[in-house]
């Protein structure tokens, strides 16, 4: 189990965003993280990736506790996350953006550039190196977000709603990218609202509701789970 989350609780003021969440992720698999809006999915990402410290509980990455580490230290260890609303370095070019990622592992600018090119080709951004990041389309921004994260050569990659805002063709392309990432040996945790997509590609699904885990298991099981259906009752979800 490359990632273990044990009893994580996180409160903000009076609000408990996460209540005793526990689960494990097997290496090389894709875990889909779903739940209605406000369920605590991004908060969970923030805790795992070191942006927040948990009030209770622990996060174990490759057997080592990491909840006390800073975000950049966790990235060094091999866990990288993307952001729900893409955060490109607007005034830098695409390749410069990705190089910020690749410099983590590369020892000189030449190597960093080469590795960045690889990451860009992987997500289909080849040819756009010198475009200023600010001027990219949503779809390309999402790809940039992924390329940048991939450039850090993570063992575990957390993708936060990387498919939001994409049209059907782009969705298919992004799904393909995700599958190829898994193929390369990287473990993925994916937050998504686009049900068909995520159910399709994940080995395991974890459902959060009001900060609590209400279901966990293979997609078909979770889809039939009464509590899950109830949580989503009245929620609109996309069948792409």
């Amino acid at each position, binding site marked *: 189990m490359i990632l273990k989350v044990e009893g994580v609780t996180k409160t903000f003021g009076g609000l408990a965003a996460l209540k005793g969440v526990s689960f494990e992720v097997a290496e090389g698999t894709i875990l889909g993280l779903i739940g209605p809006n406000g369920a605590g999915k991004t908060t969970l990402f923030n805790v795992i*990736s070191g*942006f927040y410290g948990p009030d209770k509980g622990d996060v174990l990455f490759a057997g080592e506790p990491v909840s006390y580490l*800073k*975000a*950049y*230290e966790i*990235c*060094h260890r091999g866990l*990288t*996350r*993307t*952001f729900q609303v893409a*955060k*490109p*370095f*607007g*005034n*830098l070019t695409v390749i*410069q953006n990705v*190089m*910020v*990622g690749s*410099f*983590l592992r590369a020892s000189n*600018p030449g190597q*960093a550039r080469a590795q960045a090119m690889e990451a860009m080709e992987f997500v289909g951004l080849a040819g756009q190196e010198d475009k200023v990041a600010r001027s990219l389309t949503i779809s390309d921004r999402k790809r940039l977000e992924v390329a*940048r*994260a991939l450039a*850090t050569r993570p063992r575990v990659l957390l993708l936060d709603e990387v498919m939001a805002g994409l049209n059907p063709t782009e969705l298919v392309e992004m799904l393909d990218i995700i599958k190829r990432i898994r193929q390369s040996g990287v473990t993925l945790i994916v937050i998504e609202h686009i049900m068909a997509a995520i159910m399709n590609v994940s080995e395991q699904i974890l459902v959060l509701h009001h900060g609590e885990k209400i279901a966990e298991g293979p997609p078909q099981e979770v889809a039939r789970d009464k509590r899950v259906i109830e949580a989503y009752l009245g929620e609109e979800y996309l069948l792409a």
Partner: protein
Amino acid sequence: MIAKEREILGERLEGKRARIDPSLYVLAALIVVAAAFTLVVKDKFYLHVLIMIMFYAAASSAWNIIGGFGGQLSLGHAAFYGIGAYTSTLLFINFGISPWIGMLAGGAISVIIAAIIGYPSFRLRGPFFTLVTIAFAVVLRILAVSAQDITKGSIGLSVPFRPSPQNFIFRDLSTYALVALGFMVIMILVSMWIERSRVGYYLAAVREDEDAAQALGVNTTRYKLIALLVSAFFTSLAGTFYAQYIAYIEPYGVFALDFSVLLAMIAIIGGMGTVWGPVAGAFIVTPLGEFLRANLGGGLQGLDLVVYGTVLILMVILLPGGVVPSIAERLKRGPKRKTAGATAAAKEAP
């Protein structure tokens, strides 16, 4: 099939050609011109102006490392400048130590002070960081004034005229000009190195979006600190050069807020966060100031600063990127057409 291969080959060659940085050509040209000027021109005033230009280009480049690349607006850099000036001067006057060595000693002290100041201060954002830096420089000035036994307070210190290479005192201005040139070249090279290295990329990332940078493994505080230490070191060297050139230092002059602002202003006018910005800024601003001061005399003392201030305000409102990036923009549009033409030609061929 062949056309496509030609295209790829064309692009690869293009990439290879672009690798020799045009900046190096500019630098070489600059060195040649400046050196020639130094050796040919004998007029003291013009040489002085050239020395001041290169001095400010270097000092502002040093500021630019933390201010431009690092995005942390220090208006207290006079602190390091003053430390450099006083350290080398005191070591020279009291112990006869060569100012070249004193310069390095001053640099070391500045680095230590910078580490002590910088580490807690980086938690502060925007104007609050700036305020702290201003306060530190003022405190140092007050200390310099009150430590009369050591620094002679507001009376200041004179560097005795004992010309010799190891004393860093020269009879003719041309030698000072060559030293200033060397200093400026070093700063340009340092800036160029930073820009394309991990430090530069990480600093740019931190400037753009600290959270995203952290998520990519950037230890933001550490890199800001690196930038500050490098910046402090070189600013300190500038202080020693000034002491050796002007041969007189006093607290209100070397720890002046005006000086800190000038360093920042030059970089902003030329283009903050670029290699050539501070240099261009110095070439624009310094001669203007020197000529204004020389020609208008006492009656309009302060006019140069009024002009500086006005230019700064206008730059900030109209051209926040600075002069160099705007020119770079225009130049980019030229070569782009050539590339498109080359690939198009490759496509045409069977």
